[in-house]
């Protein structure tokens, strides 16, 4: 079982307590009515689906119930780091991220 660090509970918890909530940092337009169809499609349907590092929203559903963001490697399925919702995308990932270490 994966252990995921919840930034609100401040410890690693078993994955069964968590739910994935899609890609993180997808900004909703402030002027949704004025959006062109193409832009709306990009916002609503198109996701990056990278091979490697992905930024995702997760929710500690059966714990503190809070949403937070996580950086995960889609190749190794290892979590690189997690951070609170609303915080900006980390500019630097921890060094060991290339080796796919969870901590």
């Amino acid at each position, binding site marked *: 079982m994966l252990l995921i660090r919840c930034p609100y*509970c*401040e410890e690693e918890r078993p994955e069964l*307590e968590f739910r994935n909530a899609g890609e993180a940092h997808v900004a909703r337009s402030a002027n949704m009515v004025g959006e062109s169809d193409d832009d709306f499609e990009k916002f609503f349907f198109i996701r990056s689906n990278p091979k490697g590092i992905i930024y995702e929203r997760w929710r500690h559903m059966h714990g*503190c*119930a809070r949403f937070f963001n996580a950086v995960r490697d889609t190749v190794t399925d290892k979590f690189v780091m997690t951070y609170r919702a609303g915080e900006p995308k980390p500019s630097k990932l921890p060094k060991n991220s290339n080796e796919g270490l969870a901590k």
Partner: protein
Amino acid sequence: MAKAAAKTAATASPSAERRPALAGRTVSATGVKVEVLPPALRISLRAPEASVAALSKALGVTLPKQPKTSASKAGRTALWLGPDEWLVIDEAGKDPLANCAKVSALHSSVGISHRNIAISVTGPAAEAAINSGCPQDLSLEAFPVGAASRTILGKAEIVLLRTADEAFRVECWRSFSDYVFTFLSEGARDAAG
């Protein structure tokens, strides 16, 4: 909202017969006993940081601010569930909802006395019985006495509180109670075997 809720509770007939789910059910196995606890008064409390002091004073128990902790005083226990969420359980018969109704600081308190039931799991094998369906580390180092957390047991969500070295209080929704009790009974039998 809290005020309106308190009013309704006060007008409800105190003589109304309560029939708690699973009342009195008990299962014993070697080293572990699973039993349904008597009814208690409970509230679900949501409040921002600024209201915590006023609510703690009104409730008579300091709302814990550290994750996975609880505070207890005079039969009343406050469990940290999230950064702005607590479960307050009162076993002494004093309604915490009425206490919160007097607080003017911003908060939301909802009476959930009948939504939950409590099951106690006690004995040297209590930890193993709960771990049969709960993935958390329940060793004394990771989950000391007084530790509390919302988590899962099998397919149902529970709130777990360690009341002593070898005693846990499992809170679950009433409609899940049959499933949770049976799951814990099976877990107790496995832990004993």
